[in-house]
């Protein structure tokens, strides 16, 4: 049982870190701080606009694959993996 509690805690920590990034790239960069970020230009658009329409989506993709990879490692570390 202790084993499972440790696994769950590490899982929650990982989820918390990844979701902070999720929140930052969309809500913070794309909406809350869009005007100041727009003073930095990426080609023809502001950085805030770019995060809102492009950058956040690329980050989301990376987050899911990082999570899948780390969780697979965690499953093995705590020996709770399938088969």
């Amino acid at each position, binding site marked *: 049982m202790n084993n499972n509690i440790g696994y769950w805690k590490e899982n929650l920590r990982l989820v918390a870190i990844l979701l902070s990034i999720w929140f930052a790239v969309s809500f913070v960069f794309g*909406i809350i701080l869009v005007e100041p970020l727009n003073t930095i230009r990426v080609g*023809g658009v502001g950085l805030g*606009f770019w995060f809102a*329409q*492009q950058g956040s989506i690329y980050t989301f993709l990376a987050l899911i694959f990082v999570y899948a990879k780390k969780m*697979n490692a965690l499953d093995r570390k705590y020996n709770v993996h399938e088969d």
Partner: protein
Amino acid sequence: MDLQTITYAFVGATFALYIGIAFWARAATTGDFYVAGKGIHPVANGMATAADWMSAASFISMAGLIAFNGYGASVFLMGWTGGYVLLALLLAPYLRKFGKFTVPEFIGERFYSRTARVVAVICLILASITYVIGQMKGIGVAFSRFLETDYDTGLYIGMGIVFIYSVMGGMKGITYTQIAQYCVLIFAYTVPAIFISLNITGNPVPQLGILSTMADGSTYMMDKLNLVVSELGFNEYTTQVLGSKLNMFAYTLTLMIGTAGLPHVIIRFFTVPKVRDARATAGWALVFIAILYTTAPAVGSMARLNLMNTIQTGPVGEATANIEYDKRPQWFKNWEATGLLKFEDKNGDGRIQYYNDKNKDFAAKAESYGWKGNEMVKVDRDIMVLANPEIANLPNWVIALVVAGGLAAALSTAAGLLLAIASSISHDLLKGMFKPNISERDELMAGRIAMAGAIALAGYFGLHPPDFAAGTVAIAFGLAASSIFPALMMGIFNKGVNRTGAVAGMVTGIGITMLYVFQHKGIMFIPGTSFLGGMSPNWFFGISPNAFGCIGALANFAVAIGVSKMTTPPPEHIQHLVEDIRIPAGSKAAVEH
């Protein structure tokens, strides 16, 4: 060959392909009907999920909303992709470990309550039907353009096709068909985008095109667009917000958590062989979705630029700089026939003036040019994607391809949703609640009848949709966000939430959201019954009805946790159940029962 013939050929060929696949993989047992034998590889499942996900709202409607709302439409881009992060991190692996067929089954068992299960079924049906109404709008637009009829006729014909299509196959047929549909729709979306990006900016990658300069190198494409629209009194493209920033925040959050609460997406994660695959499937689905979603900003912005330049051919204010109505291009005539594009020669000069007459400063200037108001009296946002290749003068086969892609997108999602509705009614309500001994045959039949009913109902509302396709779909997300998502989250992450809390939470969440939507959009979306009016001054902190689901979700969490603290905690075996779904070991295939 003329455009109409090529269009028929493309649509006919793709339909023959889907129906062929559906026939070949016809559902034999109820298990197959709902979850396709559970043996689907994450990449294939991801692709099918993407087709299921990207509906008329994504394909037909979203880029049109981007075209006219610019930065403000970012809520759709972030909202409909960011939800997959929540799905992958917070729900998918655990629901897969739980190993049942449907979302209400999970809620019923975790909250050890038949009432909770029934409430979940009702919430799902409300969200799914609203979603199908949005699809019906898209289907009506696509079919009316394809068959060159008015919108209502297009909608009726579309309903018939959706019915035949969904009733024939179950999930298994749908999974393979949806892979084919994904290929058709993504090809249809990206090919014109590449052409147009190449024409306008000289860069063949649309994602880079929006960052580039115009093909002549004079200025950045986005700066050019900002200039063109603001010269005619419209808001600057890259800075215009949707309502307010708070509204954009709420809108994005609602779409994200709604994504993680919609049954037709979640059901996909029951079909993967392992918990590990459930995590990967969400990632692969988002890869396939992101191809369209990162292209959409280019489609939207470039369509807007082309549209403006078609009508305003020279400097603003010069009498000859507006296109003559008699010389309007063919696409303009085609869309006029559907009733979704309307022109009215207000100043009688035979030319088209398209500008923002609600902008007081500019309206005064326009008057000095002899303009008597905006003459493009109706430009339905949902026509932009389908009209885009024609506006850009692309070859006929590209135009035909886009029509086929739009139909694929609308049909695939409508079919997936109808299946979710059918399984809620036949499996959760009928078999789970009222007639546990029902035969497989009768269960399938009940599912098909439920589908037919749902199509008829959604079609009826589709005649007067509450919003553009994407907006209507957003309301469906709000309903799912406020009811299902919190219940699933608490079911997994909070062992203390009991049945009373869960039921009270779901009822409060969806109740608040529906009340808010109905008071501004009409009871059951019937025009004229909105008792507080649709106007924004009455909005709660300026949050639009489409964006309200996250407030309902907050209320759901608060009520559920509060009520649970005051009532008896869940029994011990439920605490063990929660501990068990949190670890992947010992997962079994979804069980039939």
